[in-house]
């Protein structure tokens, strides 16, 4: 028999009157041991959904359960079961990092000895041990994020809600964070990660939901999404100089052209000769190509495709 969901959201709707944005009719489940990704453009409703699920705000309609606890009717019980990291974590700046984490751990009901030992382990794991007695206001943004991760994990929650957890973390810390998340998931913790770090979501998440304009437009495994894009390619051209790339979109099979720093990324259908035509188009546009790669589709392409499609549907 399948284990009950650690998080079960049903038809969650919450709209901000001021902006009209929010989420509408969103339903999904996260199972114990599953890492579930929430992706979507800015303003798609990820943070709103996490605010509802963390019990910070009430939905206009819909409901959700954390394990066997109704998140709307038994808020304190629900809060005790979850660990939360908000997108812009704040701390008591005049308290040490350790004191901040200790206050949260005890607020979640941890015993003194247990809190001390778990926090010592996590501070060590995330490389904050030598800064534990420094005031939190002296922490860098990344250190503050790591402290917030520690505060979210320390009390051993059944469900972790993480909003853009790795944004601002250095590479080593990102790897450490991902390893810790996989370790927690292996131990049965359900993890909901709202993130636009495509590589991270693809590497870490068992399932992914895409939100666009407040609606859940797709849900599945990263593999199923990527395989749905068979027949497409991504041409990444590193350019020495910026070029006017509008003409590339006229090439048959080119779906989308997006600049990413010095790179120009061309999403296109797989057909003979298309790479040569794209390169010729770039050269004709005055582009000085320093590097060129033709890649298989990734979750990033899915992201672009889904949000693009959803946008067209919405506008239609």
């Amino acid at each position, binding site marked *: 028999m399948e284990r009950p969901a650690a998080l079960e959201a049903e038809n969650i709707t919450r709209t901000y009157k001021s902006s009209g944005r929010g989420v509408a009719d969103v339903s999904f489940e996260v199972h114990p041991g599953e890492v579930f990704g929430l992706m979507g453009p800015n303003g798609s409703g990820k943070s709103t959904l996490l605010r509802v699920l963390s019990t910070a*705000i009430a939905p206009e309609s819909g409901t959700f359960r954390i394990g066997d606890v109704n998140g709307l009717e038994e808020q304190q*019980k629900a809060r*005790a079961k979850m660990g939360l990291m908000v997108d812009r974590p704040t701390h*008591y700046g*005049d308290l040490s990092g350790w004191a901040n984490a200790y*206050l949260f751990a*005890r*607020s*979640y009901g941890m015993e003194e000895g247990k809190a001390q030992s778990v926090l010592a382990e996590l501070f060590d794991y995330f490389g904050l041990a030598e800064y534990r007695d420094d005031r939190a206001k002296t922490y860098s943004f990344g250190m503050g994020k790591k402290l917030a991760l520690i505060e979210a994990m320390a009390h051993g929650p059944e469900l972790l809600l993480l909003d853009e957890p790795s944004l601002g973390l250095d590479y080593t810390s990102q790897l450490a964070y991902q390893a810790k998340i996989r370790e927690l998931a292996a131990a049965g913790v359900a993890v909901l990660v709202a993130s636009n770090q495509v590589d991270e979501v693809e590497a870490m998440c068992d399932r992914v939901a895409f939100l666009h304009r407040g609606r859940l437009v797709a849900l599945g495994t990263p593999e199923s999404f990527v395989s749905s894009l068979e027949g497409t390619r991504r041409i990444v051209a590193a350019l020495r100089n910026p070029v006017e790339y509008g003409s590339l979109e006229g090439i048959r099979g080119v779906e989308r052209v997006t600049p990413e720093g010095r790179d120009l990324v061309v999403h296109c259908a797989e057909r003979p000769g298309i790479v040569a035509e794209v390169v010729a188009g770039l050269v004709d546009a005055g582009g000085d190509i320093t590097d060129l790669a033709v890649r298989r589709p990734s979750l990033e392409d899915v992201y672009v495709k889904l949000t693009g499609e959803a946008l067209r549907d919405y506008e239609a």
Partner: protein
Amino acid sequence: MKLNPPDAYWKKDATLFFSKRFALLIKMLYPMALIVPVAASDIPAQYAAAVIGIVAVMAGTFGAGESLTADLNDGILVRVALTPLSPRRIVFEILAVNAVLDFIQLLPALLLVYVLHLAPLVWVLAATFGIFATLITANCIGIFIANFTSSPADVLLYATAILAPLIYVSGFFRNQNPTGISATLRDFVPFAYMNDALKAVFGLASETGAAPLEIFIYPGIIAAVLAFGVCLTGPRLLSPRF
């Protein structure tokens, strides 16, 4: 009992209060700087009592209101409210610890007042209790105001609007011998009882003022009711604002 690292919300406030030494020095000195010269002068008793009363009212109202709005703006208080702690309990801890810390700030100055103006012990105790009840009431007002604004500047504005009539009714400066409805209203303001007790400490016997026993009972009841009421606002106060 260990304060640091804090294992409860009130200990966090106490830790922060005692950890910043320069700020602590200023906090302890400014009530003395305001109150002691007044107590040592031959200013009329009712005005000396009013000065102490004003310092207590302002310290309580602005202290809680401004620190609360700062924490609300920062988002940290909303994050704390998403732990399993009851929002009402958090507000109660904020209220209680702020009132006690405000009292600690005023205590050295008060002790000097009592040394300079030897008064019967019952009036000393009544004045001390009256001041504490005032601090609870003032902190309740500050927390209540924080329900409606996230701007520390607005706290000052709203507090002035609320405190001015209460100070008038209490008879700090004017309305010292109220009659009729004004006298009835005065009975519901804890500041008035503190004012009566302080006037007695400064040697001004008042025929219309409260008796010591009343000062131990009524302001305590009023402050407790206000504290209960303001704690009920916890879920609203600590919810995110958009």
